[in-house]
C-alpha cells in the first residue's frame, strides 16, 4: 500500500496511475515507464492503493515512488506500508499491532 499526504484536490484512480508511471519515467526512463504496474485498489478518501508489479521491478518501482516529490506543483510523499508476494498478506499489517 502507498499513502500520499496532500493539501488540495485529490487524484482519482487514473490520475494516480499516471502519477506512478510519471515517477517511473522520471527515474528510469522509457524502460521504467513501460514496466507493467497494476493499481489493484485505490481509495480516494485515504489516498492509499495496492499496486502490483513483477518482482524484478520492485526496486525500480519503490525507488521511483520514493523520489517523487511533486504532484501538480504541490509537495507530496509516498509511504510504503507493506510489501508482500501474496495479496492475502496485505489484509493484516503486523506493523500496526500494538503491544498491550
Amino acid at each position, binding site marked *: 500500500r502507498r499513502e500520499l499526504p496532500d493539501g488540495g484536490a485529490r487524484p482519482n484512480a487514473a490520475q494516480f496511475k499516471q502519477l506512478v508511471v510519471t515517477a*517511473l*519515467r*522520471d*527515474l*528510469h*526512463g*522509457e*524502460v*521504467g515507464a513501460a514496466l507493467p504496474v497494476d493499481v489493484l485498489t485505490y481509495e480516494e478518501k485515504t489516498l492509499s492503493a495496492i499496486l502490483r508489479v513483477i518482482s524484478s521491478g520492485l526496486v525500480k518501482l519503490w*525507488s521511483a515512488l520514493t523520489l517523487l516529490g511533486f504532484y501538480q506543483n504541490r509537495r507530496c510523499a509516498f509511504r510504503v506500508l507493506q510489501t508482500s508476494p501474496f495479496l492475502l498478506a496485505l489484509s493484516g499489517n503486523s506493523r500496526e499491532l500494538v503491544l498491550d
Partner: protein
Amino acid sequence: LPALSRRYVLCEVVSEDPRCRQCIEDRALGLAVKDAIARVHGDYGLACCSISFAVKYLNAYTGTVLLRCRKDSYRLLCSALPFVRYLESRAQRYPCFLNTLHVGGTIRTCQKFLIQYNRTQLLRLLQNCTNEEERQCVQKSLLSCSLTEEQAQSEDEEEDDGTE
C-alpha cells in the same frame, strides 16, 4: 581492492547526409548519447553511465567512435545507442544512426578489432567500386596496409581507410 573495470564500445555513425560527418565531434556526440540514455533509462541510467563516460576516439572520415563506460552500466549504454537519431551542431540537426561494432574491455582489443574490420570493409568497398579510378585508389590502400602487416608484427597506429 575492487578493480575499476571499464568497457569500451566501438560504434560507427551511419548517415545519408554527407554534412553529418562535419559534426562528428566529441562534445556533440557525447551530448547526443547522454540525451538518448536519459530518455531511455531516466535520471538513474544517465547518472549510472555518466560516472566514467568519455568519448575516447573519433574518426570523422569513417565515422568510427569509441566510447568508454563502467562495466556495470555498459548494458544501459548499449541499449540506448539505437535511440540516437540525430547529431546536433551549430543549431543544425543531421539525422543518423549508430551501429555498434564491438564491445571490449580495453582500448587495445577494440583497436585490434577495428584494424580487422577496416580491412574487411576495404575489401567490400573494392567489390562495390563503380569506376576505375576508385578501384585504383582502394587497391592501393589495400596493398599498402597488407604489406605493413608483413613488415612489422606489432599493430599499426594508423589504419588505412579507403578514400571516400
